[in-house]
Structures are given as structure tokens and as C-alpha cells.
């Protein structure tokens, strides 16, 4: 039901690594205001944060849509980056294509996508090389 859905939209800035995660911080605040349980909020926040970092590292930013229904929190992260050539490989823990400068910032350990899957109930990746990637994740409330 449209009336039962609360939506938040965010632009994720791809130019500035230091601002990455700002949308996730905001989502966390808003979910708290909605009275969502701390455990659900943490799972959403971590998955969203990893997704946000990925968009900044790999895709020059993108858009994030968070929808809260009575049953679940649904995150849709859409970018127009290079796409993922081999999703199965990208899902392997430790596999990373991040540059060395990203590793020096504490990321790029190849845990992003596996982590997003781990903290959510469902995750679907729609990607095409040269076109971009959309990741849809849900966490049950």
C-alpha cells in the first residue's frame, strides 16, 4: 500500500571519499525516528554503508533509495559505473578490484558485497558491463 511506505532518497557523491557514508548515517537516524529495532537498523546501516562505499570507490557515485514498509526495509542502490563483469567472483570474500589507494583508506578488502549479503535477508544484483549496477537489498522488520 503506497500509504504504508516511507521513502528516503539520497545522492551519493562520487567525488569525495571522505563524505562516503553520509547517506547511511542519515538512514540510521531516520529509521531510529521511525522506531525500528536497533538490530534491524544496524543491519540496514552496515549493508547500506558498504553499498555506498562501493558506489564511491567503483562507480563515481550514484543514487540510493530506502523504502520502509510495515514488513521490511528495502534499499535500492543504483549507479552508472563500469558494471561487474563476474558477479560470482565479486561475491567471493577477499576478491577486490579496488586500487591500492583505497586499501590505504581501510577499504577494498573484498568484503563489501559478501558483507551486504550477510547482513540482509535478500540481495539481488542487476549489472551490465559499461552500463552500471543496481543492487536491491531487503531486511525484514
Amino acid at each position, binding site marked *: 500500500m503506497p500509504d504504508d511506505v516511507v521513502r528516503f532518497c539520497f545522492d551519493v557523491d562520487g567525488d569525495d*571519499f*571522505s*563524505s*562516503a*557514508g553520509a547517506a*547511511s*548515517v542519515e538512514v*540510521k537516524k531516520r529509521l531510529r525516528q521511525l522506531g525500528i529495532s*536497533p538490530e534491524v537498523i*544496524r543491519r540496514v*546501516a*552496515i549493508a547500506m*554503508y*558498504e553499498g555506498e*562505499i562501493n558506489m564511491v570507490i567503483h562507480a563515481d557515485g550514484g543514487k540510493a533509495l530506502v523504502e520502509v514498509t510495515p514488513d521490511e526495509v528495502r534499499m535500492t542502490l543504483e549507479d552508472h559505473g563500469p558494471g561487474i563483469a563476474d558477479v560470482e567472483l565479486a561475491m567471493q*570474500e577477499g576478491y577486490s578490484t579496488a586500487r591500492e589507494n583505497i586499501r590505504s*583508506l*581501510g*577499504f*577494498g*578488502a*573484498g*568484503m*563489501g558485497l*559478501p*558483507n551486504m549479503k*550477510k547482513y540482509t535477508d535478500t540481495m539481488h544484483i542487476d549489472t551490465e558491463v559499461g552500463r552500471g549496477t543496481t543492487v536491491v537489498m531487503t531486511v525484514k522488520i
Partner: protein
Amino acid sequence: MKIREISEKLCADIVCGEDQLDCEVFTACSSDMMSDVLAFVKDQAVLLTGLVNPQVIRTAEMMDMRCIVFVRKKVPTEEMKCLAEEAGIVLMKTQMRMFEACGILYEAGLKGHVEDGVCDA
């Protein structure tokens, strides 16, 4: 253990969050890789790290942590301090190295809760 005791044992200077030094914490973790903190950490209240950038604060915030200890004489930036103040996270800095700082806190009773059998550095 109170956060105040952590600062005393590590001879650490408080950067921000003075009003929260009486908060009790029971577990800690240490890593310079925020990816690993996000992947393997659960319910730790204290993060020890030698990494200095705003993502350290955001990572701690996502994990609901209460305190970050910067080791090896690392100094958090003003931007990090502002983010930590907004998130209600105590920042402190010590001259100690990671291993030494972890050992002292572990010996003093602070434990590391390990998930999936994997531990941090």
C-alpha cells in the same frame, strides 16, 4: 570497564566525548581495515586503530561503538572530531602501538567477542 579507565591505562589523551567517560564497555576490537571491522565485528564497544580518516568514525557509528582509540601517535582530524561529537563517540589518542595497547586492555579485563571464528589483527 569505564572508558575513563581505558584512557588511564593507555596514557591516552581524550580528543572528544569527555562527558561519556563513565560509560561502561565490555568488549573491544582492533584493525586498520574498516572492511574487516564491518565484516567480523559484533557488539564491540571500543575500536583500536592506527587509521586516520572520516570513514573510521562512520564505521564505528554503523557498528554502534562508543569509543575509538587511535594508536601509534595518530591524531584524528578536526572533521573526524566533529563527526564523532555528532555520533556521541569518545575519541582518544595514545603513543602506544596496537599490540601493546590491546594487551594492556585485554589483561585488564576487556574482551574481544569473536564472530565466525575470525579475529582481528
